[in-house]
């Protein structure tokens, strides 16, 4: 039986990913930020650091809950939408998900302890209970990415009459040269997204004129983390590009709209791919050969190297790639500028254009993230498992995909509204009702960050 709604199945899959991925960025990077602040509190005794850590930990927990449900939906959906894929290859890649499951367990257990342990565990034990959350975010994303890297560069099995034999799951997942750039690029992306989105929120309140020590601390910490990650991400992205050139030359050709195999291939900025070439773009001669293969004269494989039915939708992939690279570069510029100003002038820039740029950087980093996944996933088409299983072979034969699509689309729209609502509510809790800053409760209270902090207290 064939599936008339293959396109919808793909879009449904894409929609669910688009909901999950931005959320899990917070599951990966937020624990690190919160721990950084709590650790600072332990060193300095400043209540402000603890107040911020505690408030962020609540946001972290709410986002984690939504990340958990979108992830569960994804797991069910992987089986629902692509049963032939799971049935054929589950034995090869499933191990990655099984180990990932343990990471999520760890994360869920310690988030419970961390969140409810404020005030109830000894301070050091509380700090320690946060560390497994950060570690599990790292290992969990590593495991998922190992599965995705396997889909892009499959190995560790032999196919015989449609059944896999001679399976070597550890080799398939972890001895895969495609794994490392994907993992590092995604892990760094998580810090970019978390840092810039959080900073964007505080930049918005800054534009509205609120400027307390609390807001400045929140803005400076989140923004600094994102700012150091942004230039690194450009370097890692370049590395990813070279890996794609090596292992998925057709994907590279569609990133750049290279119709024909040629020596000294150019890069086009902007433009549109039509009839085997990019029109209306700005051509940078020989750049593609140089960037991808480190040799301006090297031969780059074009889209004509494979039959037309194996060419991905070029313009989708290409547009997504250009948007990612453009935003990535702009974010890196913003990051470098911010780091230099903070390090030299020791204060946040006050220019409104700068603050506005930080507000925009949040959504921009999410867009770059999603564009990157479009590049990876759509650029792999028409393959679900690169060179082994085509997407139409993987899809379910069950009817009703459009119904599922409509329902899940509506539900996710509702969830999105709900997330915004709850985050606004959490942000609106006035600071002075937080037990943290209640001066009657004892402890080394200081006025929230007096202007003399640095000069006066440095020993």
């Amino acid at each position, binding site marked *: 039986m064939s599936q008339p709604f293959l396109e919808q199945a793909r879009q449904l899959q894409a929609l669910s990913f688009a909901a999950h991925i931005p959320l899990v960025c917070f599951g990966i990077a937020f624990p690190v930020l919160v721990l950084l602040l709590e650790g600072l509190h*332990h*060193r300095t*005794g*400043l209540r402000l*650091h*603890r107040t911020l850590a505690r408030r962020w930990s609540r946001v972290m927990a*709410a*986002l*984690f809950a939504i990340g*958990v449900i979108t992830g569960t939906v994804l797991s*069910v959906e992987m*089986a*629902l939408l692509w*049963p032939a894929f799971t*049935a054929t290859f*589950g034995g090869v890649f*499933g*191990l990655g998900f*099984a*180990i990932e499951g*343990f990471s*999520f*367990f*760890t994360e869920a257990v*310690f988030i*419970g*302890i961390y969140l*409810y*342990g404020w*005030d109830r*565990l*000894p301070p050091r034990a509380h700090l320690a209970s946060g560390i497994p959350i950060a570690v599990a975010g790292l290992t969990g994303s590593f495991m998922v990415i190992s599965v995705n890297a396997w889909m892009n560069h499959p190995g560790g099995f032999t196919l015989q009459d449609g059944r896999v*034999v001679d*399976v070597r799951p*550890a080799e398939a997942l972890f001895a895969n040269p495609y794994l*490392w750039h994907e993992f*590092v690029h995604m892990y760094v992306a998580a810090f970019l997204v978390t840092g810039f989105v959080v900073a964007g929120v505080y930049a918005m309140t800054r534009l509205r004129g609120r*400027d307390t020590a609390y807001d*400045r*601390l929140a803005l400076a910490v989140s923004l*600094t983390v994102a700012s*150091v990650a942004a230039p690194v991400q450009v*370097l*890692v992205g370049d*590395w990813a590009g070279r890996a794609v050139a090596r292992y998925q030359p057709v994907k590279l050709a569609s990133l750049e709209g290279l119709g024909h195999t040629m020596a000294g291939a150019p890069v086009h900025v902007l433009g549109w791919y039509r009839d085997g070439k990019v029109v209306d773009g700005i051509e940078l001669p020989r750049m593609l050969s140089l960037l991808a293969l480190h040799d301006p004269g090297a031969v780059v494989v074009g889209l004509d190297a494979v039959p037309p039915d194996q060419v991905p939708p070029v313009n989708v992939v290409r547009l997504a790639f250009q948007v990612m690279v453009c935003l990535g570069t702009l974010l890196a510029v913003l990051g470098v500028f911010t780091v230099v100003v*903070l*390090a030299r002038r020791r204060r946040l820039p*006050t220019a409104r254009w700068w603050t506005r740029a930080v507000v925009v950087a949040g959504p921009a980093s999410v867009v770059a993230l999603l564009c990157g996944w479009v590049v990876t996933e759509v650029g792999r088409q028409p393959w679900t498992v690169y060179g082994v299983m085509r997407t139409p072979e993987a899809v*379910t034969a*069950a009817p*009703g995909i459009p119904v599922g699509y409509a*329902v*899940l689309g509506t539900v996710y729209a509702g*969830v999105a509204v*709900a997330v915004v609502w*709850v985050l606004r509510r959490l942000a609106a809790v006035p600071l002075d009702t937080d037990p943290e800053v209640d001066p009657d*409760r004892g*402890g080394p209270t200081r006025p929230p960050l007096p*202007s003399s902090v640095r000069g006066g207290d*440095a020993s």
Partner: protein
Amino acid sequence: MTLAELPLVVVLIGLAAYTTLGGADFGAGMWQLTAGRGPDAERLRDHAHRALAPVWEANHVWLVFVLTVAWTAYPVVVGAVASTLTVPLFLAALGVIARGAAYALHSGTRTSSERRRVDTVFAAASALTPFALGAVVGGIVSMRVPVGNAAGSLWTSWLNPSSVAVGVLAVVLSAFLAAVYLAADAARIGEPDLERRFRARALGSGVLAGAVALGALAVLRVDAPLVGEGLLRWPGSVALVLSAAAGLTSLALVGARRHEAARVTAALAVAAVVAGWGLAQRPVLLPGLTADRAAAPAPTLVGLLIAVVGGAVLLAPSLGLLFALVLRGRFDPGPPAPATCDAQAPPGRAGAASPPAGRRSSWVAVGLLVAGTGLLTVAESGPAHAVGVVALAGAAATGVAVVRPWALDDGPG
């Protein structure tokens, strides 16, 4: 027991954990739905919410665990089940979304009417999800899921006597477990009236659960003879007897207000049902398909079992810690224990901020950045890339230390 059956044991253990822990979370939601209105009802709802707040995420992961192990070890079975039982699985997914969203929303509510609305969504989804999952089990035990991609009926595979019976049983058992646990929690935090109310609910739902279980058994004998008969024969009958005995003991213990002991026996009663299913259906998984033939290749199974054992070694102490903290009341509401409150935080060191990170760190950061760029971008070998990534991570960390965003010169901007 063959290698091919070992992962099935893991799946069943996971399912038992999910029904006894996650199931109680569902049940707590259902008791919120039936609480009614008014201040009393609100206290009941709050108690249900608070009792499960620290643990619900961990409880929920058992479902993910079961899915991934089944997926890896018996991919053909999961492919067939997912493509035939699409509708109830989708409904379960919707229930999971609604529950999680409502849970996250709870922390943003201000008024009791907002809370009630959120709790209602939570509660409705709490009844839907176990029913849908039970219906999936019903479809499997009644052999309505043939091997293949969507080879079974989209509707009768789950709208049939067995599915309805198991679905209703799942709902009632969840409610029973929740009532037993919540009564125990209420007793621990010293809320006699809440304890009394959940005790009454535990007794009522316990009797109902026993009746539904008997009814389900009768349905299965006719509609799903393999399992229905298997439960009455050795070795399935052992589980059946154990379950019944544990269930009756739980009722007696709840009646005697021995709540902590009742927790254990109630969980045992439910876990025994899962075990009975496994024993009764063994070794058939789907019509004409046994575990031996459905299992993934041996290296995968070995890898999976190693991962599960390794994971369990790490996980068991963590879960133990979480439940110990919860059950000993460390997370209960009330004033924080004086010994652990903020006053005891390490006193501020003389310097609020660490001493200025100086030029040297800046140079280290720049040096690491240049080295990392060279190794990652210019060099072309794998090991060089690895060192390059580490150098860049070091550059980023040093960069943050140089900027010290927590110790800027302040003063309104």
